[in-house]
């Protein structure tokens, strides 16, 4: 995911401290900046558009284990 590679590195670098304070919440990251932590995903996304406009940013739930989302049918070509 090239367009969010910096944000994913920022998330990984801060994950342990975020888990200590905000496990289960959603973090908003733009570049190397942690822009906020929110109770729900849509609030974090709306704040991202409000702060940064229509540019790539990362909203990710703060979890110890990042489980894949499952697709049991064969409709996806991945």
């Amino acid at each position: 995911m090239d367009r969010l590679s910096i944000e994913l590195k920022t998330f990984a670098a801060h994950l342990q401290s975020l888990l200590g304070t905000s496990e289960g919440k959603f973090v908003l990251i733009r570049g190397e900046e942690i822009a906020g932590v929110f109770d729900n995903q849509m609030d974090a996304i709306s704040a991202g558009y409000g702060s940064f406009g229509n540019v790539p940013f990362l909203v990710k739930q703060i979890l110890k284990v990042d489980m894949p989302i499952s697709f049991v049918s064969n409709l996806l070509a991945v």
Partner: protein
Amino acid sequence: MPSFAVQLPNLQVMGPLVDIRVLVGLPVEQALQKAGTTVPPPVAVKAMIDTGASGSVIDPNTAKQLGLQPVGVVNIATPSSASVSCPQYVVRLLFPNNVVIQAIAIEAPMQGQQIQCLIGRDVPALGVLVYTGYLNQFSFSL
């Protein structure tokens, strides 16, 4: 209660297909308007309601036509892959009869060219999906 119903020639063979339009999400539209940028028109796609999909999916061409920027990344697992990283976008799904649902859709390529969108369980989670097989009909209500 907003709802729509779809009648198909053979629901079992075709699956629950529905013609929808995909539009940028509301916060995207507001950001574009604030920047004085034109909001892309909705993209017409053929969608399938897939209760085997945790979330909704749009194909890369739809995301490109809408000029979408990612707001997240998720790993997905399919029958042929354990973990593939995919971008997420905020979109609105415009169903028949003006049923509109805002979703955080995953971008992933589809098998073949018949469908360009999967409606995953994030949509039925919001309402009532009725599959009436013997009538070749399904309906969804919010």
